[in-house]
């Protein structure tokens, strides 16, 4: 099988993540997740407090000031993927061992 370069793999993977968060997320189920559903049924959902960052421009995965639900959620998703990818990737890049990987060392 033809090998895919790491750069190409990461670029394609990021595009997939952007499409999932930016477009597909609109079609996600809006039912409460397992924990919130159980909290409601068992009777402690009301102990949950309003979120301290409810004032964030992207609170609740929607973009403040953008009326169109599809666009508002999609923008929030794209911002999230880029922020998480940059921070996560940057952290990994800072922590990495310089030079070759462990498998190359033994060659």
């Amino acid at each position: 099988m033809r090998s895919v370069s790491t750069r190409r793999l990461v670029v394609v993977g990021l595009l997939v993540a952007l499409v999932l968060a930016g477009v597909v997320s609109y079609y996600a189920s809006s039912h409460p997740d397992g924990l919130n559903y159980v909290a409601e049924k068992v009777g402690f959902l009301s102990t949950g407090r309003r979120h301290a960052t409810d004032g964030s421009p992207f609170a609740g995965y929607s973009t403040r000031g953008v009326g169109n639900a599809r666009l508002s959620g999609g923008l929030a998703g794209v911002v999230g993927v880029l922020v998480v990818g940059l921070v996560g990737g940057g952290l990994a890049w800072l922590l990495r061992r310089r030079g070759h990987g462990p498998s190359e060392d033994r060659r």
Partner: protein
Amino acid sequence: MHVPDGFLDAPTSLATAGVAAVGVVSALVGAARRELDDRTAPLAGLVAAFVFATQMLNFPVGAGTSGHLLGGALAAVLVGPCTATLCLTVVLLAQALLFADGGLTAIGTNITLMGLVGVWVGWLTFRGVQALLPRRVGMVVPAAAVGAFLSVPVAALGFVALYAVGGQAPIPLDRLATAMVGWHLLIGVGEAVITALAVSSIVAVRPDLVHGARKVLQQRELVVREEVRA
């Protein structure tokens, strides 16, 4: 499974913050020493971004409830458990700070449940299943799926345990445990399917980048060399 502010009392939230801090610092050390190098570091950023994107995709599990990928097992198999803890931590911090998903006082609880319990249960189960199956690269995918499946109900049980210690409402714990584990067994099936799809697509194109396939690939390499020498 993002715990909001107010479900757990302050001492419990403080304790989980301590656990999370120790876990994340250990993960920083472990990832730097054993997991991340020039080849694998770019994949870590991709995994974090992918877990974030997939956590937005709630799938229905019936009766008006839904679930989404936790991603602990997925990340651990692809980039190693310490790096996976870091990826999940970045995802959870972004969700709490930017998207108001998961409480700020509950950030330690959420890192503990999803970034430590989810990741390590997924990883250790993966290793256990891998040891039972034939030593082939193709076996990485089913082993990852089993790890992913089990990681979800165990993380849910982790929440029940925390609630038993510091829950803010007097509720019957047996009912909580039954409901949490029951629903999260179903969500675990979705976790297993998504994890299998994601891991198999990376294994198909670049098995050498998959942390969970390292042992199998190294062994195969040794066998090939002996044959060449003979």
